[in-house]
């Protein structure tokens, strides 16, 4: 069988070879002959196709290429600079001295207009102040007491469980006192603004001495490049030496801004230090579990990997 097949194939091969050669020859002849005739049309087609390709991609770019901005740069506001915050690292905590200074800045400067309504006095304990300090600060404020025997509500000094009092009774009172502008609550402001810490620091320190040439600043507003629209109702409040720090840090504008922003970040994320500690715990436990699992795997598989299955057929039967 095998020898016959071989022979057949060999005979086919020998027969087909001259035929192929003739075909090739014919093809080359045809192309040579037809090249002069078909070339002008083909060239024209190539030029036309290229022109069409350029035109269509140009048309597409005209339609969809350039980005259309709904807002002018001034309306968008200047993007804040990225600052190397100490607490931004994976394993770094808040600078608690800065938190203490920042709370002082909030209390002496910001608190006259901005509330911090989600932060009770007790949360400061062990973070920036001692128990006694926090109690003393709480007692300086008055809160509504339980109704007395006549049903009247009297005032009582604050306790640790009370929330830091707001400067205005409600939003309408706040607007009325600030020419219609509502000073936002600062409890979650770092989470509630694009750029977070960077934005608030830039905003606080970004007030230029005078607005840039030609800038339109509406009456009652102040120019700040970082605020969307550049017209902000809040005037510059941080000036050098407006606060006197307990620890002797020079209270410059940028220092106060840095401290208060760090404090506001703590107010928005009081769990951050604990969260990062939890992350470290997770990593530590995971490494232990990994090591354990490798040892267990080795132990469980050792007998399976080292066993030998041997088939020894009964010799007597065959």
């Amino acid at each position, binding site marked *: 069988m095998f020898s016959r097949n071989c022979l057949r194939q060999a005979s086919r091969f020998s027969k087909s070879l001259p035929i192929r050669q003739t075909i090739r020859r014919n093809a080359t002849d045809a192309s040579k002959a037809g090249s002069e005739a078909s070339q002008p049309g083909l060239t024209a087609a190539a030029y036309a196709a290229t022109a069409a390709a350029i035109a269509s991609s140009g048309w597409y770019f005209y339609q969809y290429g350039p980005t259309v901005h709904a807002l002018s*740069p001034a309306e968008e506001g200047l993007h804040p600079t990225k600052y190397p915050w100490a607490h931004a690292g994976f394993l770094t905590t808040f600078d608690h001295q800065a938190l203490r200074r920042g709370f002082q800045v909030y209390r002496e400067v910001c608190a006259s207009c901005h509330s911090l309504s989600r932060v009770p006095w007790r949360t400061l304990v062990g973070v920036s102040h001692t128990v006694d300090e926090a109690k003393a600060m709480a007692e300086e404020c008055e809160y509504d007491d339980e109704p007395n025997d006549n049903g009247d509500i009297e005032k009582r000094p604050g306790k640790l469980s009370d929330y830091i009092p707001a400067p205005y009774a409600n939003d309408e009172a706040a607007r009325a006192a600030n020419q219609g502008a509502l000073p936002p609550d600062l409890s979650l402001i770092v989470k509630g603004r694009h750029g977070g810490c960077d934005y608030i620091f830039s905003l606080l320190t970004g007030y230029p001495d005078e607005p840039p040439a030609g800038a339109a600043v509406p009456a009652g507003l102040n120019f700040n490049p970082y605020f969307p629209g550049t017209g902000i109702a809040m005037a510059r409040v941080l000036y050098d030496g407006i606060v006197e720090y307990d620890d002797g840090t020079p209270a410059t504008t940028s*220092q106060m801004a840095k401290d208060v922003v760090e404090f506001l970040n703590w107010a928005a994320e009081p769990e951050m230090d604990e969260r990062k500690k939890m992350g470290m715990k997770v990593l530590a436990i995971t490494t232990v579990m990994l090591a354990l699992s490798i040892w267990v795997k080795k132990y469980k598989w050792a007998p399976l990997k080292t066993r030998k299955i041997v088939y020894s057929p009964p010799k007597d039967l065959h």
Partner: protein
Amino acid sequence: MTLSQFLSDIYESFTVAEAKAEAPPAEEKEEASEDKEEEKEEAAAEEEEEEEEPEDIMPQLQEECQNSKKCAPYKHHYDECAERVQKWDDAEEGEREGKRESCVEEYFHLMHCTGDCVAPKLWAKLK
């Protein structure tokens, strides 16, 4: 956040030996007296400075950065724009050409460059 910063954080976390919530009172007094002595010496030298309010370093850094090689072109653009606006303001009403220009965009570019330049320098100085 860079890898080197992450590694240095890990190193720092190993080097924390002890953290006390409150300093022992006896030592505090000694420290306080030492501090006072130091303060007196410093006070003698810097009496004039202490009376003055602390001066912020940020405007100074900003000015240095605006004159640096990187931001100088933006400063140049802004100054030119401010000049044009000034010229427009100075001209009488009939002679003014077009609308009054706004230099906000030039100012943004300048402050963007300045901010990037100031940030690391400022953080090195602040506590």
